[in-house]
């Protein structure tokens, strides 16, 4: 077991004692493996919740930017520019330090929640760009046809434009979903105990940073690859026959 120092993963995080089942001892002490897996769970949860936030706001803002209403377009444009042009780490600092101090009500909110909101809104600007591009890539006649048939504007979006636009933007959305997993690593900066945080702290404590970094890097690979497979599955399922890569 001492091979390449792999036994470190089965050791207690405090007194470095060997833990027989490699995760938790009878007295409740946890091992590095336990910490690593918890960190992985946190990272995946962070990314998934952020993805939900990003999709909700990104789709809304993307749609607003393609409407005929100038005020809606302005709101969507300003949103996108603000969240796109400030580095993620700075946005997370804003959510973690500035927002709670300006709005003291939010002082009770845990860092994890602020981090996934911050990561989600940052990503929403990119999704907004893709939704906008997807809708604009449809021939103008589609919109006019919907309106000419007597559909209202919301109905035209719901039944004519969005079903096609979403299918078109699945590939860029796939890479954005993988980006969100990678970007969740920045949350270490606001003390969220995810994978990167684990790599930094466990690497230092155990004096085996290479081993710890390697484990974390592999888990990031696995997570991003899993998302890639899920999105590919969705892409095949919703394929329109005779269109964009359809059969």
């Amino acid at each position, binding site marked *: 077991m001492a091979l390449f120092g792999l036994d470190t993963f089965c050791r207690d995080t405090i007194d470095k004692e060997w833990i027989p089942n490699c995760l938790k001892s009878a007295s409740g002490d946890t091992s590095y493996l336990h910490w690593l897996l918890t960190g992985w769970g946190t990272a995946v949860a962070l990314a998934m919740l952020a993805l939900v936030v990003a999709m909700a706001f990104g789709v809304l803002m993307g749609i607003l930017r393609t409407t005929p209403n100038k005020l809606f377009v302005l709101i969507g444009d300003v949103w996108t520019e603000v969240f*796109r042009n400030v580095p993620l780490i*700075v946005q997370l600092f804003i959510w973690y330090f500035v927002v709670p101090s300006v709005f003291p009500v939010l002082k009770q909110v845990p860092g994890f929640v602020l981090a996934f909101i911050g990561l989600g809104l940052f990503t929403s600007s990119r999704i907004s760009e893709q939704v906008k591009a997807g809708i604009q890539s449809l021939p103008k006649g589609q919109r006019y046809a919907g309106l000419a048939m007597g559909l209202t504007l919301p109905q035209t979006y719901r039944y004519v434009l969005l079903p096609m636009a979403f299918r078109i933007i699945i590939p860029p959305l796939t890479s954005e979903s993988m980006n969100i997993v990678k970007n969740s690593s920045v949350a270490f900066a606001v003390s969220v105990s995810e994978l990167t945080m684990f790599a930094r702290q466990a690497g230092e404590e155990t004096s085996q940073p290479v081993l710890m970094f390697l484990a974390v890097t592999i888990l990031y690979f696995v997570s991003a690859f899993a998302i890639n497979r899920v999105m590919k599955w969705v892409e095949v399922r919703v394929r329109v026959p005779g269109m964009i890569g359809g059969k």
Partner: protein
Amino acid sequence: MFGLDFSFLNWDVIRSYVANGFYFSIQLTLFAMVGGVALGTVLALMRLSGKKWLEVPAAIYVDTLRSIPLVMVIMWFFLIIPFLIGRPIGAEVSALVTFTLFEAAYYSEIMRAGIQSVPKGQVYAGYAVGMTYAQTTKLIVLPQAFRNMLPVLLTQTIILFQDTSLVYAIGAYDLLKGFETVGRNFNRPVETYLVAALVYFAICFSLSYAVRKLQQKIAIIR
């Protein structure tokens, strides 16, 4: 308003704490852009060479770096470079090396798309007038590829500039660190983070506006 107080921020403070960091962020961005585009072009040519022994290593390099979070890449290089060269290395130098090698992976994908956007007839025309592969690539393909991809290359550089703030992970003294130091010294982190966000926004927004204008200009000529 909201108990914010910006009175401590004056030119002296900016000059002594923020200017250095700003200078490093710019230096890092330009260095990684030039090095990254050069190396990225080589990687793109390798992947399009049609020779397995060139294609496979380039593909592995690009795909690996693109699948790892930048923060982890920054930490990996900071850990490994001293081990490879046998002596300790500063966070700033490590960041310069890391960003050049990391961005090369992203620039290479852009350059690959750019090279593929040049019509095949251009290459055949080059061969037909007796040019070698090297001459065709250098004189015909790459100039057109660069021109086609210029807006995308510049957009990637704006993202690169934003990403330089992640050197926070190894404690290099960049623009963000400069503001953070001011916030710590004057015990005003809230205000300094706000100003930092504003500065990044102003720079990135105006640059992306300029890229959009350039894109329109190029689109008209072609």
